[in-house]
């Protein structure tokens, strides 16, 4: 272990000494960065973006997140049922889990770029690309929720002569609905932040695009700060709603 630490320390030291700082004065740079942060976080203001426009852009962002969650949720429900060990034949579940693992291993930004080939950079590519990663995530989460189910219940309904569809709708889904909803909501929050990032990185519409414009086109740090706070406030709002929804579901 010490050999590893020593090797890593040596590499770090070598990296530091050979770093090409390109004429940047490090103390000055740190000071400038801090000053920029101060402008962003302490003087948020808006010159171009009105409150109404910002709210509209935020709505666009949320709409994309909802679309992604809805789309991937439906696909994942089907794949999750077929990927659960207690509900589908073993070869099928293994195939689905393998494919889903690959889908998840590819970063979401890459998925967006892949779809951008066909759809062009923009909200279509963003929704499709983010849906792929979302499907990879939700399918795994759903399948595991189904697998944690007491298999005796499924057996009992097989014994009364119920078929697969009836068992899924009368036993599997009612028993796992709480898990399904809480996973879906968690993913919705992740999709929301991802859409913001894709707005900035892939030109998808929404608040993320304004963020991108404010920072790299107008160099308007005050507006950057305002948008950041806007997104933060909305994320907190989502979190509160999520906690409420879960509390209600637990009672039922």
């Amino acid at each position, binding site marked *: 272990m010490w050999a590893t630490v020593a090797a890593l320390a040596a590499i770090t030291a070598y990296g530091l000494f050979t770093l090409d700082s390109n004429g940047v004065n490090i103390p000055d740079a740190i000071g400038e960065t801090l000053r920029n942060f101060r402008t962003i976080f302490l003087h948020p203001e808006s010159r171009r973006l009105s409150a109404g426009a910002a709210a509209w852009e935020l709505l666009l962002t949320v709409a994309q997140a909802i679309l992604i969650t809805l789309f991937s949720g439906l696909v994942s429900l089907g794949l999750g049922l077929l990927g659960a060990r207690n509900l589908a034949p073993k070869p099928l579940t293994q195939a689905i889990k393998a494919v889903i693992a690959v889908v998840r291993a590819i970063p979401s930004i890459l998925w967006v770029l892949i779809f951008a080939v066909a759809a062009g950079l923009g909200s279509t590519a963003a929704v499709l690309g983010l849906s792929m990663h979302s499907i990879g995530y939700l399918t795994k989460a759903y399948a595991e929720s189904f697998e944690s189910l*007491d298999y005796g219940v499924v057996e009992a309904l097989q014994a009364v002569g119920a078929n697969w569809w009836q068992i899924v709708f009368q036993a599997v889904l009612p*028993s796992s609905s709480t898990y399904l909803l809480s996973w879906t909501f968690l993913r919705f929050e992740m999709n929301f932040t991802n859409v913001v990032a894709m707005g900035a990185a892939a030109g998808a519409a929404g608040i993320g695009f304004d963020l991108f414009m404010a920072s790299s086109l107008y160099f308007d740090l005050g507006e950057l700060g305002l948008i950041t706070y806007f997104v933060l406030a909305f994320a907190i709002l989502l979190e509160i709603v999520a906690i409420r929804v879960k509390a209600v579901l637990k009672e039922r």
Partner: protein
Amino acid sequence: MAVLEIHNLTKYYKAHLALDDVSLKLRSGEIVAVIGRSGAGKTTLLRCVNRMIEPSSGRIEFEGVDIRRLGRSALREYRTHIGMIFQHFNLVPRQTVMENVLNGRLGHKSTLAGIAGIYSADEHSMARSVLEQLDLADQAEKRCDQLSGGQKQRVGIARALVQEPRLILCDEPIASLDPRSAKAIMDYLFRISRKMDISILINLHQVDVAIKYADRIVGIREGCVVFDGDPKNLKKRKVAEIYGCDVDDIHFEDSTGGDAMFN
């Protein structure tokens, strides 16, 4: 008339022999208790009857039909005639008592009606009358995870009864219940069998319970039937053989009495 006839049933799990040439007959309305140690093959025998486990060889006839030849949909139709009751009840915990009981009708319904959970007025009134018989009428709207063990098992029985079965398979139905609930469950099963002329094949751990309620007892040891006969003829020596232990370790009174709790 025999409801169920099992001929030379054998079941292998890979190389392990779980059931070895088991033959058994069950007449209409008869209660047959299967006793034996854990792992002797009781559960395997029971589950071969409704093909929750596929037999390796042998013949199982239900009302004259060889059930090993049934295809998938015929098998589902066949299972509707056979109720099954489990040690751990196996109810849907988040559904109400009524919903769980109605689940017993799923095999009689079309796929779509079953998915949507649409039941006819007849089915509702049938479920209600079954719940009444089991003294559960006032619990109908309660969620099943709020019930006691004994109540849950009664819901399990109700679910089996709305199938309008001709045979009920009971896999250790009282093994996880307290003695009082256990006695109540056995009394319900006994009454149902007598009143509705339903045959019952029941796995039991407790020899005294088997002797008290069963018309016939089948003892299984390592997959083989070592006793099949009237409870009166089950002697301590035989019980010791079934359970593979010393005669002195058997604590029940043969032919005459039984455990105090069950008298």
